[in-house]
């Protein structure tokens, strides 16, 4: 593993540049710190990842092992679970469920970023009558358990004849109904010093220009965070599609992977595990790709605050 190599390389490189004795000791201490840091993180990673590794191994267990073999290793390893799930469910190929989920999630990300950032800017930077009341209302929508508003919302979408379409899943995202993201972005905008937008205002810039050319670039970490969460949470959303989608070919993954279980007859837990694991991969890749942007967010651009 690279744990040992990396710090050593750094040490050598720097030490040839800076041969001075006290400096060397400091670098040595830094190297020791880095090693400790690495070891600590690796240990934590191992603990955190163990259940996922268990899950991966479980995808190779035949269905009958689930009640009888609680261990990590399958007793009779098999790839049957994958063979079965790749065939799809009742005539619908597996990729179709992935495509459905992907479509909904991508639309949700676009909608949430667009609408939440606009609303957040208004709440954080514009002084107008009623802003406080509206902000309180927005926080208020976070507090109510969503179960009690399911039925009235269903009635509305049913009246609009939008049931069995993706609209009830996507439209709310374009209307910033997830206060979580509005509030998140508000907090980040409020943390940006006002010097820059005030300078821009003196130059005659309006709110639209300030928003697009000053604020948006500065809240990149918040936007990336919102994008990641929206994608993952939409990908995993179960209740929305359950209520609004009737046609099995249009089901997203969370519904599809339940279709291997029927408590009233037989359940294929092996297949369930395999689909669950496959369903993890796209969002894992999404996260790996996008988490990089968290690093080169604001910090590298420098905040002159």
């Amino acid at each position, binding site marked *: 593993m690279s744990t040992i190599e990396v710090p050593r390389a750094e040490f050598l490189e720097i030490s040839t540049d800076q041969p001075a004795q006290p400096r060397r000791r400091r670098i040595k201490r830094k190297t020791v710190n880095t090693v400790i840091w690495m070891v600590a993180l690796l240990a934590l990673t191992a603990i955190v990842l163990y259940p996922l590794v268990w899950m991966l191994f479980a995808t190779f267990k035949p269905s009958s092992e689930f*009640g009888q073999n609680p261990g990590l290793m399958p007793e009779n390893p098999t790839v049957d679970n994958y063979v079965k799930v790749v065939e799809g469910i*009742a005539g619908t190929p597996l990729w179709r469920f992935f495509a459905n989920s992907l479509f909904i999630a991508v639309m949700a990300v676009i909608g949430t970023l667009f609408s939440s950032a606009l609303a957040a800017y208004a709440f954080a930077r514009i002084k107008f009558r009623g802003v406080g009341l509206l902000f309180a209302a927005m926080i208020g929508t976070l507090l109510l358990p969503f179960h009690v508003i399911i039925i009235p919302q*269903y009635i509305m979408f049913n009246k609009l004849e939008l049931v069995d379409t993706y609209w009830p899943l996507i439209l709310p995202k374009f209307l910033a109904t997830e206060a979580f993201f509005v509030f998140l972005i508000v907090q980040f905008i409020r943390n940006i010093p006002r010097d820059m937008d005030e300078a821009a205002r003196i130059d005659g810039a309006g709110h639209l220009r300030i928003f697009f050319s000053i604020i948006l670039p500065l809240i990149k970490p918040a936007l990336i965070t919102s994008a990641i969460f929206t994608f993952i949470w939409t990908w995993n959303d179960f209740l929305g599609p*359950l209520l609004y989608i009737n046609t099995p070919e249009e089901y997203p993954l969370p519904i599809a992977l339940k*279709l291997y*279980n*029927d408590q009233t*007859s*037989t359940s294929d837990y092996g*297949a369930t595990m395999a689909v669950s694991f496959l369903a993890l991969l796209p969002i894992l890749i999404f996260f790996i790709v996008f988490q990089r942007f968290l690093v080169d967010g604001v910090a590298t651009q420098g905040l002159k605050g």
Partner: protein
Amino acid sequence: MFNIRTRRTALAAAALTASAALVLTGCSGGGAETAATYDPDEKVTLDLAFWGNDVRAELYDAAIASFNEEYPNITVNTSFLGFPEYWEKRQTEAAGGGLPDVMQFDYSYLRQYSENGLLLDLEPYLGNVIDTEPLAQNILDIGVVGDETTGIPTSTNAWGMYTNPKLLEQVGVEEFAGGDWEDYDAWMKEVTDAATAAGVELWGGTDWTGRIQNFEVQQRAKGEDLFTEDGEPNFTEEDLAAFWEQGDAVRTDGSVIGQQRLEEIYPLSGFDSALTASELTWDNFGAGYLGNLGTDFTELGLFEPPVTEEGAKDLYLKPSMLHSISAKTEHPEAAATLVNFLVNSPESGAAFGTNRGLPASTTALEGADLDPLSQQIADYEASIADRLGDAPPVPIVGYGTLEEKFRLIGQELGYGTLTVDDAVSQFFSEMDVVLNQ
């Protein structure tokens, strides 16, 4: 994707079948639509919803394919989910107005949906569109709520006892030879003790006082259903306390699998996991057990439950599922045609086999190819004929809640976190709420 409900095209007013007039009575606000009957040339789309897994979905696809050979103009859009999700969705649709045309229905929800006028009264179609010849009267009666027939049973099941012969052989104990509940407890202890001696992790069974069905069987042995025709409770606090106290012995001497172990193997049961040698349950659970036990186990034993009272008619046939039609369907006749096909046709019997339980219709049963287990279930239901009484009244609204509450109380008794007296008063106060909702 939008659900395209085809509009009724201008009908060539010919070809009215004899049942047209009858159909009108089942059609709400028909107005000038004299031709509410199903016209074979008209293109109709029906939504059909059922609960089940991928396996059942494929069986439905096969059945509908043969349905379409006969009725090419009826397009059937199927939609399926697991059992709890299925009902969550139906409840929302019922409140929001938008149930599918044809639904696979569960007995415990039948009264609720019927009494609130959500299901179509099938009376006008019985004997014409829906063939009643292959369905015994006591089976048809199961789907009657008040004076309306709102569901047709597809299949029946009965309460029974599954055993695991291979495990019993392993520990050297004979099958349960029959007897009363105490005999059963003694037999379970024998199995558990033998297993302990042999160093095998195995118990004789599960604490049977956790299931409301066992209480029902014991009450019926006294000639009393749990609820009256009017939905009033028909048992006392003393009855219930006496029932739960019967479990005290097995719970304390460890001859049944402990609650803790059961939690660890969830979502499987003790019997699924080869940890118990017997289980009192509905007889249609056999296929699921075999599937979950895996290829090491090829056969199960199926016997009658312990006897409370010699000669009592304590068992009954329950519909494992029914088919119902939404009261708001635009195509009642086409929907009834589909229901008839799914319940009665040999093609449907051939497609489903016993996936939905043992077919209730003789014509469907003839079409079905029974595997050994299904044959065993059919034989079992025939063998208990003299213990089979009339089915109890259609379960009260909220029966599902009570059944679940009963199960949870059973768990707590297993943990010892609840005394029998507290359990009884909790159950009765829950029942109060349910009956008054």
